[in-house]
């Protein structure tokens, strides 16, 4: 059957319109970051001469010789930004692993044990999700002051390893992914509670472990207000605070600020691309079901 010419025309218009709008969205997504990366390799004079990459006179070829690693050199040699990178990696991974373990254990207990107080604990977890973080900022700071934990990594890690929504997520994951028969079987085989958890439960909730590790890792990496409030010594600053310090201390040195921002964003982007499959689908599925 041949569609009418008019219909074919509107179809083509719709095709063209959707594709160009999507292309526009992709461009708007990419351009700021691409510009940032390109500009971080420029000298101060070059900022004014080209918007993206420097071109040779009268041609479309990129003039690579006008690009420089200078900003990165200064970033790691003069400012010691590598320290911030190491601090961020350390804080994010330690918090991520501890929080995941803590929440998986708690979620498993709430989902697959019968005990007095389970209802109360579940209600507590659900209610805690409502508390906005900024409310606890000042009293949390006072607590860390009294415990002598200000300006320490422990003061950042300990409050972050018990997020209530994590327990909730793992409770859901265990309810839907760990059959009771399997737990009974493990018990009949003589496995202790801890062994059952490690060998039977954890492998069954692996997708949630991946998603939650990623959420926590990113959350700590991107957290600014926590380390800004808790830490005082510059050698303990993670990237989020270190990059803000660049803006304070080197406010007219755009190259340095750009390089610092690129170094802070890139690891997260690489990690995201490596783990994206489970992450995006898991997140969306959780929203629709929840």
């Amino acid at each position, binding site marked *: 059957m041949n569609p009418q010419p008019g219909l074919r025309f509107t179809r083509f218009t719709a095709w063209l319109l*959707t594709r160009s709008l*999507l292309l526009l969205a*992709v461009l*708007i*997504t990419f*351009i*700021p*970051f691409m510009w*940032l990366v390109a*500009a971080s390799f420029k000298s101060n004079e070059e*900022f*004014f001469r080209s*918007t993206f990459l420097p071109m040779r006179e009268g041609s479309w070829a990129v003039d690579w010789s006008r690009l420089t690693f200078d900003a990165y050199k200064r970033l790691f040699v003069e400012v010691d930004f590598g320290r911030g990178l190491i601090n961020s990696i350390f804080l994010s991974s330690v918090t991520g692993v501890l929080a995941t373990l*803590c929440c998986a254990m*708690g979620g498993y*207990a709430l*989902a697959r*044990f019968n*005990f007095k107080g389970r209802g109360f*604990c579940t209600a*507590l977890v659900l209610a*805690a999700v*409502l*508390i*906005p*973080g*900024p*409310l*606890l900022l*000042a*009293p*949390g*700071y*006072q*607590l860390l002051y009294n415990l002598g934990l200000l300006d320490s990594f422990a003061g950042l890690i*300990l409050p972050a390893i*018990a997020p209530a929504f994590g327990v909730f997520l793992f409770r859901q994951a265990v309810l839907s992914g760990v059959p009771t028969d399997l737990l009974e079987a493990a*018990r009949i085989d003589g496995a202790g*509670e801890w062994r059952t958890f490690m060998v039977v439960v954890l492998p069954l909730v692996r997708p949630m472990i991946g998603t939650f590790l990623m959420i926590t890792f*990113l959350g700590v990496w*991107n957290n*600014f*207000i926590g380390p*800004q*409030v808790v830490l005082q010594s510059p050698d303990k600053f993670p990237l*989020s605070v270190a990059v*803000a310090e660049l803006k*304070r201390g080197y*406010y007219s040195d755009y190259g340095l600020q*750009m390089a*610092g*921002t690129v170094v*802070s964003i890139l690891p997260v982007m690489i990690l995201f691309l490596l783990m*994206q499959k489970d992450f*995006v689908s898991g*997140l*969306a*599925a959780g*929203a*629709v079901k929840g």
Partner: protein
Amino acid sequence: MSAKAAAIPASSARSPLAPWLFLSPFLICFAVFTVYPLIQAVLLSTQTTFGPGATRFVGANNFVALFRDPLFWKACSNTLIYTLGSIFIQLPLALGLALLLESPNLRGRSWLRLVLFSPSMVGVVFAAMMFGLIFEKRTGLLNQLLHGTLGIVGIEWDLDFGWLQQHVMLGLIVASLWMYVGFNMTFFAAALQNVRKDLVEAAIVDGAGPVSRFWNVTIPAIRPVAGFVVLMSVIGSFQLFELPYIMFSSSAGPDNRALTIVLYLFQNGFEVGDLGYATAIGWALAVILVGCTMVQRLLARGEEASA
């Protein structure tokens, strides 16, 4: 769900302590770092402090002062404008993108979804750094792009136009669009899977055009997720802090035009050193957000009941 869980036979081999041991790391940390500070937040809001050590009881004075504090109201109105901006600009765009991604025979759909989602992985601090540089006067991307493109049609764009000085809220909203449109799109895209194909086809048979199909079939199907997305946007927007604080170089912007509720809380608690007043601001925020959550839940329940 709880009924199903309750049906587990209480095996005699299981120690009654086991669940508590599994819960203990969480419960201890939760008690120390969430429950205790929450109780302290009640006490702190009745005190004036000079740093974390020196406190003085002032009763309800913090809340009285808060009500009369023009800067607090300024922070509230700025936050509200930003929130409305994120709901009424951001969410329709996110839904639009999700619909575009649904178009038939689209190649690279999952790649597109991934690309559009990726900015939300960038931390607010880093996005704020980036957009601060983009809005910069002479060297910024925006002024250079405008100068270049408008130059072609003969308009001389001022390279020294101060976006951050002239259009404070616009800067914040644009940066948050870049960060979160793709994120919200992901939820709408998942919700669009709930649209029943048979209803769409029935509507086509009945002669309904695309606009009428959108309002009568698509919107009702995605309404529950949309309610959730709106609530998340409100909660997130009301806690806006890093974006203005970093973009305006550790300040609240010219004339406090970028002052938000959490930024004001931060200034009072950690620049002035009055943790009591900061906590009072925190309570105001909590009341607003818990209120919004309750309203959303009531609305959702009402819809379920009438459906």
